[in-house]
């Protein structure tokens, strides 16, 4: 390396770029470098000079120290994405980078605070093909029993998860195509999930959280490569959906309350169970409470009522919010263990990122002061040759009024 910055971590640049949803080309334009230079910085063949590093820091809105800390190894456990098939790779990479940042924040916080002890039952399955639907029902029920949830509706799913020691991050991922992702970190042996806030309805976020819990409980021992085959991926997603249905709507209690599998009846049940009507139809089908043909008819009525876009009560039920990371930060500040500035230095992230990832009020980390975000500037064109007939404007003084 020549004239570079000692200790620069190329992998951190990749993570930062992906977190901002930028391509190498876009970053190159913003930093007035070539994309091949960015590529060399990222793969470690070269490191940026101090002024280039400063420019990266400004453009990506991250402190310089961020690029100097080696990336934390969270292990090879797969990251499960709950996303539509249409979600792009760049969107997935962005969400993955944001989850990693959340994990890093939690890791740093754990130097000072003890988070709730992890208490998550696990299914010992090393191949998704070994998991039967009856196993899924059983383990979903075990989760409920272990966490003292009984058989009724769960009043706050995110609180249940955080009580069980799972770290939940909820933020906008920039697209409605992505619903959530989850991962086990080997650093602290803790489960993490990121729930997308873009379509922030109560029932959707609860379903997303239960779905990710399904991955964490059922698929912890799966290898990353099992997610690359389309057939396997679909089945793994189906299993997570089954788990979510069984966890949110237990067969014993829910089925006895479905007095009529009609759409009107489901609207009444939605208010109590805080689960979407679509999910209830799927659950009724999986419990054999309706046959294929009737289910098809229901979906038709469902569409004709315009519920594919928005279901009744979506605006009335309040979305749930995570609290664990925000509380940890507030505790450290209130007890004067760490100041806001100390924490930002520890996290090596911008105040806006920390606030967003930890569900803190905007401006909390910057102590109420608005953060100055440097905007990209146009390239300097002063060296360009101006046309000869261009002259500078003459300043004319106005006449003074007596």
């Amino acid at each position, binding site marked *: 390396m020549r004239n570079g910055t000692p200790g620069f971590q190329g992998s951190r640049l990749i993570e930062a770029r992906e977190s901002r949803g930028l391509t190498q080309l876009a970053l190159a334009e913003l930093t007035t470098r070539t994309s091949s230079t960015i590529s060399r910085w990222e793969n470690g063949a070269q490191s940026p000079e101090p002024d280039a590093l400063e420019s990266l820091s400004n453009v990506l809105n991250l402190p310089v120290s961020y690029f100097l800390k080696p990336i934390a190894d969270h292990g090879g456990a797969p990251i499960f994405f709950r996303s539509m098939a249409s979600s792009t790779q760049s969107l997935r990479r962005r969400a993955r980078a944001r989850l990693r940042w959340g994990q890093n924040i939690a890791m740093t916080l754990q130097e000072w605070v003890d988070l709730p002890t992890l208490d998550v039952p696990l299914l010992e399955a090393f191949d998704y093909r070994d998991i039967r639907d009856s196993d899924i029902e059983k383990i979903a029920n075990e989760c409920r029993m272990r966490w003292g949830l009984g058989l009724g509706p769960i009043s706050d799913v995110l609180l249940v998860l955080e009580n069980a020691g799972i770290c939940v991050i909820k933020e906008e991922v920039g697209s409605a195509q992505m619903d959530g992702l989850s991962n086990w970190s080997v650093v602290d042996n803790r489960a993490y999930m990121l729930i997308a806030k873009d379509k922030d309805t109560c029932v959707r976020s609860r379903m997303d959280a239960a779905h990710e819990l399904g991955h964490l409980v059922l698929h912890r021992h799966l290898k990353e490569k099992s997610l690359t085959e389309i057939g396997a991926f679909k089945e793994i997603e189906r299993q997570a959906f089954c788990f979510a249905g069984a966890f949110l709507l237990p067969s014993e209690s829910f089925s006895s309350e479905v007095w*009529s599998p009609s759409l009107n009846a489901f609207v009444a049940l939605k208010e109590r169970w805080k689960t979407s009507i679509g999910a209830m139809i799927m659950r009724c089908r999986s419990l054999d409470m309706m046959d294929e043909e009737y289910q098809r008819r229901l979906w038709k009525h469902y569409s004709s009522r315009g519920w594919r876009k928005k279901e009744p009560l979506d605006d009335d039920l309040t979305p749930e919010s995570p609290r664990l990371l925000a509380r940890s930060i507030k505790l450290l500040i209130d007890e004067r263990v760490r100041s806001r500035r100390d924490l930002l230095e520890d996290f090596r992230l911008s105040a806006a990122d920390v606030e967003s990832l930890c569900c803190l009020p905007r401006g909390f980390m910057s102590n109420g002061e608005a953060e100055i975000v440097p905007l990209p500037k146009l390239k300097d064109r002063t060296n360009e040759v101006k046309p000869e007939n261009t002259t500078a404007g003459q300043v004319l003084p106005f006449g003074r009024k007596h």
Partner: protein
Amino acid sequence: MIEPIKQIIDNCPETFFQRILEYTDSNFSEALTLAGRHIEEPEKKNMLGQLRHARCEAGFRKAATESNLIVHTPHTKPAGSRYSLVVANNIYLIRSNIQKHCGTPRPTAFRKSWSVLNQWIEPIQMDLLETVTPPPADRLCGMIVTTSHPRLGNPSVPTFVGIGIPWPDLSGWATLIAITDLLARYHDKETEERTLQAAPVEIKDRAVPQLKKRPNEK
């Protein structure tokens, strides 16, 4: 007076009405498919109505048979046609014609003869001085009411499926409710008898971080 709907709930199984709802949906869809497949445009509108009637009659009988009720298909008088009659204890159920709105059913002879059973709902006091003993309330006639909206509704599904209790002279409905509401009444009855629903558990907030103890702390 005994409420007619309560009589129905006490005598007819819930599954019968669940099936009616389900089959009427599919009967409408079948009729539309059949009309589209086999009938040419000029006759389609009329035949769609005929096919809906035929399929709904079949669905009515099927729902009753599956719910272990007695099903008859008597001839009309004067003879010329047949209609379906379902008997659940002392409740006699027939279908009204498919309507554009929930109006009175077509006053055919067979409907008139069955609606007379409901005289006890509206006893006629013929004598001002002496009380006339009302007819016994031991039998009831109910009609399955199905409507379709010719322009605004989706032609593959009914707009309304309900059960009506006609006045004895077929001048209107003494009671008319949607099957979904009737099913809700079954549910209410069931929940009264059953133990209370599983209540949502109040979750204790234990998502509270604790400061780590430092070595110099006691």
